[in-house]
């Protein structure tokens, strides 16, 4: 039946042992922080400043093409500023020469995620290890699971080391 897809109970201790054998404070990726002051100002006006290397260029293009509906909010910019932001994000995206391929592992070439939390890499690092529960978010003061810096204090500087 459907239960056969679950891990046999007996395997759980073995799995736990494997997980515990891994370093507890493994270093997360180091990404380049946003260096353009205009991009930094506009992209941090409403939320934390996400490093460009967290999404592929096609995702940034989709986001900057639709700023009037930016996750439900109007984040409209004038044409010149929009272009500057779009160009910077494309040039520094995860799949640019400056990016880290690690972030894109497991992502299909046609997939255009607009949320970092939709990346298979992100899910592997968080959901599957049950790191982000409602209780955790509440304790850390995060209003949503994409608020990286609630747990990764240096996220805006591109440092995502595990802090617990």
């Amino acid at each position, binding site marked *: 039946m459907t239960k056969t897809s679950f891990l046999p109970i007996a395997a759980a201790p073995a799995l736990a042992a494997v997980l515990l054998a891994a370093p507890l404070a493994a270093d997360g990726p180091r990404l380049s922080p946003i260096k353009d002051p205009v991009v930094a100002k506009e992209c941090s006006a*409403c*939320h*934390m400043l996400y490093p460009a290397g967290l999404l592929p260029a096609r995702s940034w293009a989709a986001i900057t093409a639709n700023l*009037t509906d930016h996750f*439900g*909010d*109007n*984040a*409209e*910019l*004038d044409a010149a500023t929009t272009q500057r932001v779009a160009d910077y994000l494309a040039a520094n995206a995860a799949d640019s020469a400056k990016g880290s391929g690690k972030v894109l592992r497991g992502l299909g070439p046609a997939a255009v995620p607009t949320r970092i939390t939709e990346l298979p890499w992100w899910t592997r690092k968080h959901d599957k290890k049950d790191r982000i529960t409602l209780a955790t978010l509440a304790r850390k*003061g*995060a*209003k*949503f699971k994409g*608020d990286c810096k609630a747990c990764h204090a240096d996220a805006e500087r591109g440092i995502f080391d595990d802090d617990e």
Partner: protein
Amino acid sequence: MVRKSPGFAAILFVVPPLAAASAMSPAQKAIVDRYVAAARVDPGFSGPSAERGRAFFFTRHAGGKSDTPGCTSCHGSILAGPGQMRSGKPIEPMAPSVVPTRFTDAANVEKWFKRNCGDVLGRECSPAEKVDVLTFLLGL
């Protein structure tokens, strides 16, 4: 020597309600003046009103997004204190007496009117509405 006439004292007494307007920086005044000029295109425009601006700011509007029915949805009701973005990020207090750089960058003011009027009212704000809201806020 200078003698204070009773008239001078009377002027001093009358001045406080207008003090906010005179405390405006040149940059702030230039921004208000631009919206006033735009508002005057409407012959019904009766001049800036901080009271109308206050009412507009604290009204629960219709036509916008359900989670942002008013200015206070994000800015809060205590305008000398911080507001909060939907993301949880704090918003600097609106009161220029607390944050003197408030309403000193014309492009920034217009950018936020455009975004926020859309989110709160589902339309652009009129120049007269902007004049009133700015006049109210600049008095804080």
